[in-house]
């Protein structure tokens, strides 16, 4: 016993830099402790190399900063997969700054063990490091270890502090949780990007925030500008003068300390191609076009046609112009109101996107009643002077007082029909400051009101319109049809959201209204009783439907498409690639694309051949995780079709799909598979 200890001690003295997994060097001690080995999965080991430093001396992080050098590792006998670094500290040195560690740190090496006949694997690690106080001393050393795969431990066993492995491992940066990273762009001498909270996480509780760039060549070590708001933080990272464009999405480590002293570290990867602070003409045009196209949607078209009819009947140009301006005012005010509401709710922490109204069943219910009443009224079901509240919506072609409300109505009914172009314009409202986002809504409204304005101010256009006549009565009745169809479709949406009972109750109420309408001419009922009883019934239905539990989306019959699961998506994108269809029951364009393209036999065949992992992200109800994922793609409205490949490659398809678009997109995947 004694001679062995003496021998070991002797060897330890002769070879000070090499003693069974411990290196003693100038100002630093590097060791591999018994408890510092963890088997992650079969054939994969995580080692914790313990660097213990003398007071006032430090070693460096993977980006050492203005000077210094990161510790290096050369592994023999196994494959070095990855090195994990606990978050560093800023170490200032005069005007320069370094990023590193003081006192002690554990650096984690993930190794892949080779296939070996014996269960004992021997690994050599050559280490190099730089330890500095003011002056620097480079150090070299070697650690040899033997790992017994059967017994799952190091041989010979070296005791050590078991807590330290867990302690430093818990400090390792995790991928961002609870917030969404916007894409970043270079602005002047800084790289600017933002993080937005999701699920109402409040940033004002953070006591200390530090951010470290992994890329020391592109980013300077000087303090970045950090602006903290309740649900958003903006970072302006100073960039080296010699970097014109960043080649790859930069990575950062964000360390936050809250009031209670808890520290969390996150690793951020910022996609490139960021938001331009200047609203370009192109985006404004996009919004305008989106609004224009909304006019052609079955939801809006009836209202539009009614307005045009009112023009046909009117002789006075002045009246027409005044009326169109009031209509435009109604449209603009409603859009701006909705936009402002969206922005306010988002900044209050709610994760919402455009179309958020339709995720609420009470809104869908109200729309069902509205469209039903409107449809019936277009069919002249209620006669010409009953139900005075309908008059307010100008359903009797009276100009003036109702023009403003017609504009409001147009915006309300436009919600279920997201037109192409609107999606990208809406997505941008996520990134831009509030007043610029409102500008987008403004131009959207302008686009919607444009046909009416044009007709009012360009008399020549009006001559193109047919002369008024009795045909108008028939067309008006015809317009009632798309309104009723929309009503039926919304019923289907409600059924998906709140289940069959809700749909049943709502349909019953509709039948009641219909009966009322039929009977009112037979029974002499006072107008007031009629309308107030209708109102009561409607309200009862609203409360009842809303109180029902939301129905979990039933699994689609089509087994090709999987449910939305972020973890699975992240995994599959690296192997086979992922195709995500962001859809909702209330999104007409989405349903159109589904029926027309995604369920087309040829396209289905192509999707199968491509080997892509297919995901259907259902946004019919309020789903914050899907909202957050969409935000990460730079969107907040649907439809969205995304193809994810590898670590970070993401392509978005246009909102209106065609077979050709699908063909083009899927081709490379199919040829890869060798079809």
């Amino acid at each position, binding site marked *: 016993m004694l001679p062995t200890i003496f021998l070991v001690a002797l060897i330890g003295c002769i070879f000070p830099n090499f003693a069974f997994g411990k290196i003693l060097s100038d100002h630093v001690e590097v060791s591999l402790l018994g408890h510092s080995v963890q088997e992650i999965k079969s054939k994969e080991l995580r080692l914790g190399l313990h660097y213990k430093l003398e007071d006032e001396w430090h070693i460096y992080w993977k980006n050492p900063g*203005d*000077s*210094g*050098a990161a510790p*290096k590792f050369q592994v023999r006998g196994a494959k070095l997969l990855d090195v994990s670094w606990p978050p560093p500290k800023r170490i200032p*040195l*005069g*005007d*320069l*700054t*370094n990023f590193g560690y003081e006192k002690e740190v554990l650096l984690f090496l993930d190794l892949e063990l080779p296939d070996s006949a014996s269960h004992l694997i021997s690994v050599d690690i050559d280490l*190099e490091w*730089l330890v*500095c106080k*003011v*002056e*620097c*001393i*480079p150090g*070299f050393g070697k650690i040899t270890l033997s790992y017994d795969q059967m017994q799952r431990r190091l041989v010979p066993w070296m005791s050590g502090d078991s807590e330290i492995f867990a302690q430093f491992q818990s400090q390792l940066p995790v991928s961002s949780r609870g917030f969404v990273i916007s894409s970043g762009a270079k602005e002047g001498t*800084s790289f600017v990007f933002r993080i937005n909270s999701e699920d109402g996480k409040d940033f*004002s*509780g*953070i*006591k200390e*925030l530090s951010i470290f760039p992994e890329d*020391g*060549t592109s980013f*300077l070590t*000087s*303090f*970045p*500008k*950090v*602006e*903290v*708001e309740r649900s958003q933080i903006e970072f*302006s990272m*100073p960039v*080296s*003068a*010699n970097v014109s464009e960043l080649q790859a999405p930069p990575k950062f480590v964000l360390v936050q300390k809250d*009031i209670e002293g808890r520290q969390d570290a996150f690793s951020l990867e910022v996609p490139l191609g960021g938001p331009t602070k200047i609203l370009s003409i192109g985006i404004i045009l996009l919004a305008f076009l989106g609004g224009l196209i909304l006019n052609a949607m079955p939801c809006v078209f009836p209202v539009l046609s009614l307005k045009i009819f009112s023009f046909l009947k009117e002789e006075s140009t002045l009246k027409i112009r005044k009326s169109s301006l009031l209509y435009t005012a109604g449209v603009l005010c409603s859009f701006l109101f909705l936009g402002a509401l969206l922005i306010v709710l988002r900044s209050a922490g709610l994760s919402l996107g455009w179309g958020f109204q339709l995720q609420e069943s009470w809104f869908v219910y109200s729309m069902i009643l509205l469209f039903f009443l409107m449809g019936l009224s277009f069919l002249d079901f209620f006669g010409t002077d009953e139900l005075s509240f309908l008059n307010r919506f100008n359903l009797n072609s009276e100009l003036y007082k109702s023009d403003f409300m017609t504009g409001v109505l147009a915006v309300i009914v436009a919600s279920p029909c997201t037109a192409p172009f609107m999606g990208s314009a809406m997505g941008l409202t996520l990134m831009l400051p509030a007043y610029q986002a409102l500008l987008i809504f403004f131009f959207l409204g302008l686009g919607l009101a444009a046909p009416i304005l044009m007709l009012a101010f360009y008399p020549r256009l009006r001559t193109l319109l047919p002369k008024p006549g009795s045909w108008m009565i028939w067309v008006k009745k015809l317009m009632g049809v798309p309104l009723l169809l929309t009503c039926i479709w919304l019923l289907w949406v409600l059924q998906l959201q709140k289940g069959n009972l809700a749909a049943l109750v709502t349909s019953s109420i509709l039948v009641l209204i219909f009966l009322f309408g039929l009977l009112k001419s037979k029974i002499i009922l006072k107008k007031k009783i009629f309308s107030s009883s209708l109102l009561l019934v409607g309200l009862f239905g609203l409360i009842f439907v809303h109180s029902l539990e939301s129905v979990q989306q039933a699994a689609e019959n089509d087994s090709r498409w999987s449910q939305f699961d972020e973890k699975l998506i992240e995994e599959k994108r690296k192997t086979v690639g992922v195709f995500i269809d962001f859809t909702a029951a209330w999104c007409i364009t989405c349903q159109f694309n589904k029926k027309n393209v995604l369920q087309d036999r040829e396209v289905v065949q192509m999707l199968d051949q491509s080997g892509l992992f297919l995901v259907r992200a259902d946004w019919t109800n309020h789903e914050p995780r899907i909202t957050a994922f969409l935000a990460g793609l730079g969107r907040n409205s649907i439809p969205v079709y995304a193809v994810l490949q590898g670590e970070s490659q993401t392509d978005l398809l246009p909102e209106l799909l065609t077979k050709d678009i699908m063909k083009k997109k899927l081709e490379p995947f199919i040829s890869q598979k060798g079809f």
Partner: protein
Amino acid sequence: MTKTSFFPMLSLLLGPLLGLSLSVVSMNAGADAKVDAAAPAFTEKDAAGVEHSLGGLKGKWVVLEWYNKDCPYVKKHYGQGNMQALQKKYVEKGVSWLTVISSAKGKQGHQTPAEAITDMKLVGSKATALLLDEDGSMGKLFGAKTTPHMFVISPDGQLKYAGAIDSNDSSDPATIASATNYVATALDAAMAGKPVPTKSSKAYGCSVKY
């Protein structure tokens, strides 16, 4: 103030304070010299008392090499004769190679003129001159952060390269042979009128002891 209302009050106070304190304007501690732009105009005395300035060097290729005799990374290049060979090769081609010491008095690497001349002879430096930038003004002008930190300036005063001497930041001299020497490639390309392949890189070494 009850216990429950204390924390909301505190966070209310901290909130705006936080907002203010976290809006720190970026400190411009030594901006990087910009490549493909005019090099900063410097004037500095060498160990022999002779003044060198950028204006006076017009028409010549200039290499600036930041130096600290005690820095292990400087020793890596001088110990093997790498730096000296580089100096000899290009000085013979007409390049004006200026070694600069920006260490402040009392700090590592600082040398008096006499010490500097002795040291130059000792290490066998083939540089044209050794500039003594005791107050660190020239170093800060160029944004020199490490020793060594290299700059290549064209005859018309344009900065052609700024950064590390080579591509391997290890302190092990054995790595020099396999590393790409950025200064050599920059000079070879620029002097032949061709574009420089690597115009800038992250400099490595010990921090300059301002």
